[in-house]
């Protein structure tokens, strides 16, 4: 089975490194973007199995990026998980309502992350 490709959108270098390392160590390949624009371009280009989307980004934010992905027929079916430090009360509901397929708050629980990723990638397989 070919490695599932996961697009990680994250503007914090350390956090990018954390997710990348964990994913690569657990058998996924990663595409990395530190801006929403870059992320959309990569998604269009590679059609990744899953997008892990940070919300607060410089320039276009994660919510806008999700909207654009959903509007593009090439990317509209790609599941997008919000992985964000915006973890105050009501944030989860807000993001789920906006159309994200899942929500992980920072600091992330590695097991939780891997579980969620596995769930969406399997579905992408099918």
């Amino acid at each position: 089975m070919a490695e599932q490709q996961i697009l990680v959108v994250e503007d914090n270098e350390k956090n990018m490194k954390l997710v990348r390392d964990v994913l690569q160590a657990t058998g996924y390949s990663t595409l990395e973007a530190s801006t929403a624009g870059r992320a959309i371009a990569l998604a269009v280009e590679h059609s990744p199995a899953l997008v892990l989307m940070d919300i607060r980004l410089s320039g276009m934010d994660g919510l806008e990026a999700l909207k654009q992905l959903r509007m593009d027929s090439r990317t509209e079916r790609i599941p997008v998980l919000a992985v964000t430090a915006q973890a105050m009360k009501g944030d989860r509901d807000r993001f789920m309502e906006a159309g994200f397929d899942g929500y992980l708050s920072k600091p992330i629980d590695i097991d939780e992350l891997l579980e969620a990723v596995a769930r969406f990638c399997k579905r992408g397989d099918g």
Partner: protein
Amino acid sequence: MVTLVTAAIVSVGLSEFYFSYEDTQRSVTRLEADKASAAAVSIDQFVQGILDDLREVRKPATNSTERLQSFLALLRRQSQISQLTYLNASGIACVAAYSIEVNEIDTTRCEGDRSTSKEFLGAKAARQYFGSVIYNERDSRPHMIVAVAEDEPGAGVVIADVDLGAVLDAIKRAQIGTAGYAYAIDSRGELIAHPNSNLVLGHKNFADLPQVSAALGPGAAAADVVTTGRDPDGREVISAYQSVDPPGWWVFVEEPLSEAFAPIGAAMWRTAALLIAFLMLAILVSVLLARNLVKPIESIQAAAARIGSGALNQRIEVRSSDELGALAEEFNRMAARLQTYYADLENEVQERTRELATALGDLDQKSRELEAASRHKSEFLANMSHELRTPLNAISGFSQVLRKQLFGEINEKQAEYLEDILASARDLLSLIDDVLDLAKVESGQIELRLAPFSLPEALERGVVSVRERAIRGDITITLSSDPAIGTVVGDERRIRQVIFNLLSNAVKFTPPGGAIDVSAKELDGEVRISVRDTGPGIPLEDRDRIFEEFQQAAAGKEQIEGTGLGLALSKRLVELHDGRIWVESDLGHGSTFTFTLGAKAA
């Protein structure tokens, strides 16, 4: 006042009039009575004189000549008798003598039968008789036939023709005033003497006049006064009468009312004129008084009413030097002061209104600023949360990666350190959450979601969440909840947060081998939840401070690190539920934290 004056004057006038009427009537009637009496006396004397004279000639005579001689002697002596006639017992005239000297007129021959004449029959019956008044055609003087019976038995009657001029004179003398008059009547009411001889000649009978019928009536006094008389023409008269008996006559002295009371009438008119004059004067004075007294008062009253209704510039125009003038002046001063005060007040109000408007503007500005500040604060909190979580993500994440040994094995010590790092990361995250919650409570951004929930279950979950740590610290946790307590109303998540905070602190500060007891009971209509530990206890001076932000008892500080915000947050959350939270502590032996859920929770 006019009425009073009028009444006084009228009553004085009326009483004056009444009394003068009485006086006048009294004096008139007294005068009349006196006159009547005097006239009566004169007439009586005259009649008695005639009767005395006749006594001489009524004595029996030896013959006719002798009788004639006595007759003539009397006629010469008594001028009031103009004729004497002797009727014998049969009524035949036998001797006749006349006062006038005409030859052969006196006679002693018996000729002429007068036996059926009134005088003969009257004298025979009553020994004396007074006839009707007749006027002698010769001298136009009143005459009367007086007849007396002869003293000697079997004798005749002497008839005298008596001149009543004396009676008429007496009557005329009795006249009073200009319209008053007197008269005499006989017992039948027929006139004997009256100033108006025509009435006497006409044999006028006055018996129908009220005063006459009163005098002739049965039981009448010999002399009296009649105030309701009438004269033959029907005019009212005031009358006094006196009887003359014999011969059974009555003398009346009268005066018409109009005449009698003419002086009173004049007095009455004078009085009435005076009365009217005084009335006019009284009215005039009243009007003047009203003008001088009432008008200023009315003017003051009207001005006061206008001032009362807000026309503060109103002044009273009363120019007088009396009390009213002073009053008006005082009133004007008062109105002026009032006006000044009012103006001041208006200025004051305007000033205050301006200040208030400014203050409101400031308040509005402040409110906008506060709103902005609140918005900034929210943004700040969100940013802070985000910025704190981002590095924490790396710390926590890499530690987890290491602990999962994704990139190679770690030794025991390293594993222990990783646990420490992760525990600290959890504490830090909890601290961040508490700070955010506290900030939200402070800025009123927390809204409770009140709903019924099971308190025993919440306590159970609280105990479970700290059990692992308690076991590790060799601490026993017991739960002793009153079975009667079941469902309460509140924001379950927040209450659990409080329970967790208290339990978390208890675990933190209880040394190994210690014990924690969690209990819930109902007291005074409120539910009390207590967490008792066997920690170091809290000094008295710290028992309030620990509920403040970032405060921690000195005793706690040296033992175990804490968030320092849990109690502050718990206090706020409990108070949001209308509850209270406090601590009781036995220094060195432990503390008991208790919070209540108020009536809201029941």
